[in-house]
């Protein structure tokens, strides 16, 4: 029974949602699912949040390396919870969004969360550089193509591209870097994108059917 019931649930819900598309009286089942999912996710957070607290309390209790930082994490977590759930500094009533100016929650969000997120995001500028240094090497034909395409687009993004090929005669203007960059973006790039996207579509369909038919059952383990 421990295997059969979940399996039956997956098969039933899966087929129901596939079929619901074709039958107007049940066509909103997909939306209903999304709603249920959101609610399940809230309950699941007791497990996730509980896990977060447990890990850091354990670190503290055992004085593991960097246990001081666990205090910071726990403190931040509890601070945000209190500020948000009690709506500290709320200028309105209970219906007021927690992201209203004046609330403690909102001001922590603005002065801590936002700059930290933006900074982490901006790390990409550095990693884009280090990755291209290492990865764009003409090791084989595929890597060379990757390198050349990237290089042309990079050139095309700067005034260098226009300067480098401005000597070309009018008849060869398509081979001027800025034009070449445009051409790559609108033809070759698009072709690759489409192949990938169609492939993904087929992959998803196959994955879905395997899940629904019970060919893949990660959390149920092997048969028997």
């Amino acid at each position: 029974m421990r295997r059969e019931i979940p399996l039956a649930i997956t098969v039933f819900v899966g087929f129901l949602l596939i079929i619901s598309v074709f039958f107007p009286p049940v066509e909103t089942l997909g939306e209903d699912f999304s709603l249920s999912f959101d609610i399940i996710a809230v309950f699941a957070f007791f497990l996730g949040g509980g896990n977060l607290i447990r890990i850091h309390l354990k670190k503290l209790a055992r004085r593991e390396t960097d246990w001081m930082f666990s205090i910071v994490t726990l403190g931040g977590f509890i601070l945000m919870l209190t500020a948000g759930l009690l709506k500290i500094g709320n200028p309105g009533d209970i219906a007021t969004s927690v992201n209203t100016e004046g609330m403690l929650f909102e001001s922590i969000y603005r002065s801590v969360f936002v700059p930290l997120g933006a900074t982490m995001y901006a790390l990409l500028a550095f990693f884009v550089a280090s990755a291209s240094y290492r990865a764009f090497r003409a090791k084989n034909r595929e890597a060379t193509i990757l390198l050349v395409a990237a290089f042309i687009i990079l050139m095309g993004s700067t005034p260098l591209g226009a300067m480098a090929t401005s000597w070309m005669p009018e008849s060869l203007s398509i081979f001027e870097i800025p034009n070449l960059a445009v051409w790559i973006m609108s033809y070759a790039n698009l072709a690759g994108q489409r192949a990938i996207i169609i492939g993904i579509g087929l992959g998803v369909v196959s994955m879905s059917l395997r899940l629904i038919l019970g060919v893949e059952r990660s959390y149920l383990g092997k048969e028997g």
Partner: protein
Amino acid sequence: MDHFGIWLAAFLTLGIYSFLYRDNAWYKLSESIFIGISAGYWVVILFWDNFYAKFWLQRQDDPMLWVGAALGFLMLLRLIPKIGWIARWPLAFIDGATAGLWGMNFLASNIMVQTKATIMPLMGPAFSGSIGDLLSNLVLVGGTFCGLIYFFFSKEHKGAFGNAARVGIWTIMITFGAMFGYTVMSRMSLLIGRIDFLFRDWLGLLK
């Protein structure tokens, strides 16, 4: 932002960047603050948006909501070892529903729409359009076709089939190279934004 807010934001910004040199206490501090604050942030948002607004306020109108709540409750049974296996039921529900929804969506949006979009004439009416246009269109159609061949699983990439697959992976590599190169500018803009914050708002170096 007030003065304290700017200093705090600058302190955390530099803390994160210190990671580029190597892992250190300043980064660890910024990281721990970020984890704690952001985890708390999302609990609060989940609570007010999902639980309070979607469930609590409308619990009497929509019986479907109770299905979600019941499944959510079953999920919590994982905390009781003896009957923890019941937590698989909501997982099975989510698996089945996600599979069903995505399967149909992707069939329509990825396979059908993209295939249809690729159906286009190679040339304009009565051989109009330049050779360049013809070649460009051939690249677009041929590239898509060969790309599909590359993903083909049930045949070894050999012979003519292998050649087509090779053209396919080349096309895909052009795509990747181009997309990488094209993204650099927006990534640099992010860094410009942060440095602008440090120079302008914090240090007051720029007007």
